Structure formats: C-alpha cells, structure tokens
C-alpha cells in the first residue's frame, strides 16, 4: 500500500488516500488547494438529532488537531458525527448518503437489530456505493448509551463515528440533572494505511518506551544488577517486549475528546452540586483510555448500554468499542477530565466547569508500567490478583512466587443440570494452527480472575473498575445454562504484526456457527501480550465469573494478556454476523470471524 500511495499520479487510489499521503509527506504545508478549500469539520460537542427520521451525509472535510492537519471523512460535517437520540420501542429510519469516492457503511454498535441493518460490507450488506443512499430501518428493543461508526476500510479512523442514545421506554431510572456525551477517539496524523504499512515494516516503530540501557542501570541501582539482568533476560529470551502496550502512540496519534485535542480545552458545563451523567464512549481506532477526574468519585451506572449496580471508583479503563456511563457530583468550579492512553504517551483532556474558559490542574502522565509475568504466562505469577506494581515489583516478586494460586483446574467441572457444565472448562485446548508462523506465543496456564484492572493500573493507589465489579441489573437475559462450549484463542505475532484467532487469519478461517435459539458458552483465551476488546455483533455476550456466576451483559469484552474468560450467548438472531477485536488494525489484519446463526 505504501508504494502506490507515493505514486498518486498513477491514479490507483481514491483521492482521499492520495491527499492523506501528501499530507503525511509534507505535513501541514502540503495540503493541496482544493483540500484547503474544504470546509473545516465542526468539532466539540456535536449537534444532536432526534428520531424517528435521521439524515446523515458522509463527505470530506479538513481538520486541524493541535497542528496535525489533514482530511477527515465526516458525517454532516461534524467530528464526531451528530449525536442520535432515539426512544426504546420506536422504529427509526436513517438515510445515509455517501459523498465519498469509496464504498462506505455505518454499523450501529451494540444495537440488536436484523442482520441486514448491521452495516458490515461483505457480510450483512453490499455497502453504500459512492453517490448512493442507503436506508437503515430497525426497531429499538433496548435503551442506553451506544455509538455508531463506519465498518469500511479505515473510515472509522478518519472520523465516521458518533454517539447513539436510546431513551428507556418508561423514562430514565438513572437520576441526573445533566447528561453529557464524552466521546473519546484518536486521530492518525498519518494516512491510516501508511501507519499500518510502517507497523508491517517495523512492528515497534511507534513504541516510545523501549527498554534502554539507562533504565537497566536505574533498575540495577534499585534492585541489583543480577535482578535487573534476570528480568531483561526473560523478555529478551522470548523476543517479547514488556512495553508493547499499544501499537500506535502519540508519535502518530492525537488523542481526542469530542473531536478536540487537549489544546482546545473541550468543556462541559454544570452547576455545583448537580448530578452529572457522563456517557463515556471509546470510539478510538487504537487507544485504550484510562479515565479519571481528579477530585471526583465516579459512580459507574451503565456499561455497554446496560444498567449495572452502581459501583463507585476513581478511575476506569475503556477500550475501543466500549461505553461506560458514570454519574459525578461536582462542587468546585472546575475539574479536569483526564483520559490517558494505556501506553502513557499522551492523553485526551477536557474540563468540567461552571463556565467556559476555566481550567483545573492537569495531572502528569503516569509512569509506564511494564507488562508483568502474569501478562505473559498467566498462572505463572500472582500478579493477576492486583499484586504487581511496577516492573521492579514484578522483578522482585518473581523469585518469591506464590504457588498457591494455581493448579485447581482439574476440579473445575461442576454440573448445574444434566450435562450443562456450570462453569467454563479450564482445560486449555490450543488449535493446531497456533503452531504456525502467525503466532508468537501460547499460554498454557492462563489466569482466569477478572479482578485485575490491567497493566498500568495495578496498585496505583486509586480504586479502579475491573470486570469483576460489573453486575448488570436484572441478571442474565436467558435462564438456561450453556449446552455447549466454544473455545477461541486470540493470537498474533508482534514481530510480523499479524493478528488472528486460533492462529488463523480471517482469509483462512471458516465461520463460527451458532445454532439458532441455542444458549452456548464462549471461552476467549488470550495468547498475546495485548488486551483485545472483543466485539460480537447482533447478540449479547453475558460475561460470567470463573465460578460460572453471571456478571454483566456486554457488547465488547476486553480480554487481557494471558487471560481466559467466558461468557454465554443466546443465539436468537438469525443471519450473518461478525466478531472481532475492536482495535482497528487487529481487526483489519485478521482478528476477525464471521458468525452464522442458522
């Protein structure tokens, strides 16, 4: 893709890509005349549209994020696109017109609908051709905070996304005086395909936290040269990087909050003492955000659109595709909304204030934590229980490892009724394709606990939300236990920059078949060192604890390195669906499966 993008004269590429290549080459000055004449995208809190009829138009606009200029693909000229407000029970009609020079689409993320309306080109429909209008029509059978985005090529990375709010039929049960969408996203200053090509050429090109000699000497001073070397030895022997936390970094990304980089100081207003509901959505292509508001407790009331038993935390991690509603009660004049990227190279920053123009102190970025032993080998380490602090702690604990946390796997098969296992099988079964060149590691002793906030958030002195804290109000949607079990492994090769499921890229895969109407259990087992937000279209993923207890109904589940977790699915949606990692490049490179329900 790289060569053609440098040869625009050959006319091989859509104009947008050519422009982005030009932009990438010459930075700001290289924007051609016609692009400079493009209307600037409207950013900040997007306009709100109410149903049941919506009109959306995709077109090119120009953007400038703290000096990173470029061409964006946007909806109704706005980035993020308009916030769509609908009502539960309502049948909505959404006409989407494509004025781009390439096929486009919109996927309604987390919305349960007929598969023909799901908006995945090549699976659920043919896509929206240039110049055409596609009419989506579906009835809302749920309420909550959702979002929508393009499912075509790299348009999701270049601006086609927005919030979708469905008001409950019987009125809101979550009490709040104000309601504010906080849509986090990221912007690649480079053409996304160019960024991807660079990762293919040098997988660590954007890593700004490489282990260095300076760090080694610092570790040696603190813990002794022997311990410092022993830690390096382990990672280097495996050819794994303990700082491979995000494929992209601030080297190429701008971190956005409601379409604005931190220089723009996006501000949400409130009156002191009011309850403010923040509908946090992560629409980023590649960035896990760790969000906190210093000085405020966050009461989590909804996850992935589903009301949960309120839980109060200081901070939560939100991965691409996930939504999380929190209620806050600010009393001071201004607070900083601080969403730092998982790799700690930058943050999306906004302000909650009583009037425009105020700012509160901005925290410094946390220090980078290295991945721990638990992130590579799961059960090899007790760090999974939140016991690991930073790299040095991991290093020091390593020698005095606690063996008590392992080895009960064989007793894991309690039966609930008849032949339905009450909990997920702990027997690890790798697919034979995991021994190919597309996988660089396999975890044989995964960690199954869900109370680990993940790398970078362990022992930071703050109360951080974990999957174990989530309890969907009302319990599971289906009282049946699982009749069968599907085990899928998340795989990849960091050096080759390939991503797959069961060691098979999408091109070589066969669909996963769900029998219509069945209740089944899915086990996701992460054989990589990255966290993958796994999103299933069309059906809910009902997360369970390692003991088989229902936790939460989710559309996107982040699976941590060396983690094995399970959920139940009711296959009540006929048709062809997809299931993928919501990190865009992982998805596009093959961590993607077709799902057939028949």
């Amino acid at each position, binding site marked *: 893709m790289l060569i053609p993008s440098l040869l625009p004269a050959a006319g091989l590429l859509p104009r947008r890509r050519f422009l982005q290549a030009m932009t990438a080459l010459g930075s700001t000055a290289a924007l051609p005349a016609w692009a400079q004449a493009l209307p600037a995208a409207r950013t900040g809190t997007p306009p709100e549209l109410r149903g049941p009829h919506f009109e959306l138009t995709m077109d090119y606009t120009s953007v400038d994020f703290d000096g990173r200029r470029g061409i964006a693909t946007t909806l109704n000229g706005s980035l993020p696109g308009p916030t769509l407000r609908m009502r539960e029970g309502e049948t909505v009609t959404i006409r989407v017109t494509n004025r781009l020079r390439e096929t486009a689409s919109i996927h309604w993320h987390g919305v349960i609908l007929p598969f023909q309306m799901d908006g995945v080109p090549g699976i659920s429909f043919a896509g929206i051709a240039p110049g055409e209008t596609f009419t989506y029509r579906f009835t809302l059978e749920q309420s909550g905070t959702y979002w929508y985005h393009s499912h075509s090529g790299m348009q999701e990375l270049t601006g086609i996304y927005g919030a979708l709010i469905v008001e409950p039929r019987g009125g809101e049960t979550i009490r709040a005086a104000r309601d504010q969408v906080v849509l986090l996203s990221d912007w690649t200053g480079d053409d996304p395909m160019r960024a991807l090509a660079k990762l293919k050429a040098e997988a660590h090109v954007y890593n700004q936290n490489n282990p260095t000699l300076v760090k080694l000497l610092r570790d040696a001073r603190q813990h002794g040269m022997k311990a410092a070397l022993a830690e390096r*030895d382990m990672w280097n022997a495996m050819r794994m990087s303990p700082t491979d936390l995000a494929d992209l970094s601030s080297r190429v990304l701008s971190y956005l909050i409601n379409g604005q980089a931190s220089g723009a100081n996006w501000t949400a207003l409130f009156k002191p003492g009011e309850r403010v509901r923040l509908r946090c959505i992560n629409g980023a292509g590649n960035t896990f955000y760790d969000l906190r508001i210093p000085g405020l407790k966050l009461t989590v009331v909804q996850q992935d659109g589903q009301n949960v038993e309120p839980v109060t935390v200081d901070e939560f991690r939100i991965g691409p595709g996930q939504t999380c509603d929190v209620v806050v009660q600010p009393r001071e004049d201004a607070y900083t909304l601080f969403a730092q990227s998982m790799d700690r190279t930058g943050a999306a920053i906004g302000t909650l204030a009583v009037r425009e123009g105020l700012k509160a102190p901005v925290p410094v970025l946390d220090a980078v934590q290295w991945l721990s032993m638990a992130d590579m080998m799961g059960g090899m380490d007790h760090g999974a229980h939140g016991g690991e602090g930073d790299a040095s702690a991991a290093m020091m604990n390593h020698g005095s490892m606690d063996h008590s*946390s392992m080895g009960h796997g064989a007793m894991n098969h309690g039966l609930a009724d008849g032949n339905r296992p009450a909990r997920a099988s702990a027997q690890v079964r790798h697919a034979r394709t995991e021994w190919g060149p597309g996988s*660089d590691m396999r975890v044989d002793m995964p960690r199954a606990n869900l109370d680990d906030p993940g790398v970078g958030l362990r022992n930071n002195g703050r109360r951080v939300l974990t999957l174990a804290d989530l309890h969907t109000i009302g319990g599971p949607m289906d009282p049946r236990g699982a009749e069968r079990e599907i085990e899928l492994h998340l795989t990849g090769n960091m050096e080759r920059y390939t991503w797959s499921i069961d060691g098979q890229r999408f091109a070589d895969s066969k669909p996963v078949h769900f029998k219509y109407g069945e209740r089944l259990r899915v086990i996701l087992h992460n054989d990589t060192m990255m966290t993958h937000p796994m999103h299933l279209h069309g059906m809910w993923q009902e997360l369970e604890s390692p003991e088989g207890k229902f936790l939460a109904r989710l559309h996107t589940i982040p699976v941590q390195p060396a983690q094995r977790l399970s959920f139940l699915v009711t296959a009540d949606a006929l048709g062809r669906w997809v299931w993928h990692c919501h990190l865009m490049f992982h998805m596009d490179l093959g961590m993607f499966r077709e799902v057939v*329900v028949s």
Partner: protein
Amino acid sequence: MNKFELNPPSVGGIRPLHAFALLALAFGSSVAAAQGMTHDHGATHGATPAAPTPSPATPPAAGAHDHGATHRAPPAAAAASPSPQAPDAPVPQAAMDHGDMQGGSPPADARDPDAYANGHERGTGEHVPPGVTKLHLGDEHSFASFKLNRLERVFPRRGGNHTAYEGQLKFGGDFNHAVLKAEGEVAGGKLHESRTELLWGHAIAAYWDSQLGLRHDGGEGPSRTWLAFGVEGTAPYWIHTRVTAYLGQSGRTALRLEAEYDAYLTQKLVLQPKTEWHFYSKNDPEQGIGKGLSSASLGLRLRYEFTPQISPYIGVEWQRSFGRTADFMRDAGGRASQTRWVAGLSFWF
C-alpha cells in the same frame, strides 16, 4: 564487502569476537547470549533448565531455534486456572518452564480450528444477502517497504575514502514476499563491488523466514552468479540473524553468516553491533578469495533516531581476511586486517 581491502591499515590488536563479547556484556540484554548463558528464567523457581541459547555467530537451523523446542506441557499441567480462591496445589515442574510457549509442532490432540463451522463457509450459503461479495480484509494485502540500512562514507585509517551502501526492498504478504537486497562499495565514482540478491521469502516459524533466490556479484573483476538459500530471522535476545548458503558456477559454494543487535541506550540513541563471516569452498584468485574462512568483520554503529525512520550514525568497523584470502590481499599490496571509521545515514519508509 570483505573481499577487497581498499585501504589496508592495522587493526590495533582488537579481535572482533572479543570486542563483540565485550559489547554484548556492556548492554545487558545481550549478555546472556554472548556468554552462552541459559535463558530459562524458570530456573529462578527451581524448574528444569532449558536448552542453551544459540550464540549469534552460530544460529541454529530453521525450526529448531524457536525457544520452545521442548514439547508442550501435558494437558493436565496446562489445565491450571488460577484464581484467588484456588486451593494450594503443587505446580508441575514442566509447566513452570516457559520453553513450550513458543514454536514446536502441534500435538496430535490439538483442536481443529474449523470444527465450529459445522460445514459453513464464509460468504456463501444461507443468509448471504443479495449482491454481497465475499469480504476481504487487510490480512490479504501486500505491503511494501524500503530500507536503506547503511549509506555511509568510509574513512580507513590509511588510504582513500569511499562510499558503501546496503539496503533492501520488500514486497508481499505476511508469509510470502519478494525481497531485493543490495550492497556495495563505490570508490572514485566507480562501482567497486556489489552484491545483489533477489529472494523469495517464506515464513517457516514465528520468527524465521526461509529465503530462496539468486545472488549476483558485480563491480570490478569478473561477475559471479549464485543460487542462494538461507534462513533469516530473529534469534532469542533479539539478535537479527541470517545464514545463507550459495551454490555458484563450477561447483563453487559459499556460506555467509550475519548477526546484528540494536541496543537502546536511550529512546533515541541506539548502539548496533554487527558481525559478518564469509566462507568459500574454492579459491577464486580473480576475485581475491581463498578457500575456507575468507573474511570476518565486526561493526559498531551508534545512531541517533531523529525519527524512527531517519537516523544518522557514526561507527567503526574492524575487518580481517584469513588464509589464502589474506595472502591474495597481501600480494595485492594490502593488509589482512584493517580498521575503518564510518559516518552515514539510515532511513526507511
């Protein structure tokens, strides 16, 4: 670029291998490799030690070098599922060894990844809407990259300066690609020597590609064409390694070993030791090459990554000819060993 000594200086008593070991020692991460230390961190926990790490100069054969040459742990050992509530249980020794996390071959009872399809195929069959053609994602794309690893001015301690280059152009998918490798020296405006290879690379293991193709030696003197077969990849400890065997005209064979390592001193300052060894099966006086180990070199370059893609560097290179090659060198009025300073630029896109 070892077959001619353009400017024969003295080496000052530093032996390449010695120097490599010292360097490796200095930069932590490669220390174990240089010392032949075992990499089994499990030893910390009292587990059985794993196989010794291959040294950079003698990479193992394809397939066997993946850290996980030992076989996968038995299923019973693999079944452990830790949780805070887990009862105490002894940990099987085999499972403590991380040697089975990488490489190897699948056991007979490995899961069939297609079993969940129940006979369904992607993009065909029931519930495929009209007009929908099969979805293709980026995993089927081809990518291209161009890397100029070295474009440098060479300053021998005695004699004239010249320019050297080494780069590659790669195009293809994840597991199969074409690669054009070129290196050579330009002196006095003339291509003094060049070696160009056109290879087909094929992934054979997580970190290793096999390479098959042609090599052409050009520049001054008679040109030579070889059939090339090799293995290239990343050995444990991030040592980029390449072993290539060549089959030439009139029964000539040759072997080339290369290894290099990037030691990050800071996020931008990178020290790169690099070594190269050449062996030939026959004397080739016209090319100044003798039978056996003909030459070896050790380079040390310090680069500054302005961006990850553009790095100027300075460095030093020791080079030595051996046996008949050294004789040819001396006959031509040169010296068998030399030290040279280099300054250059590397970039890629």
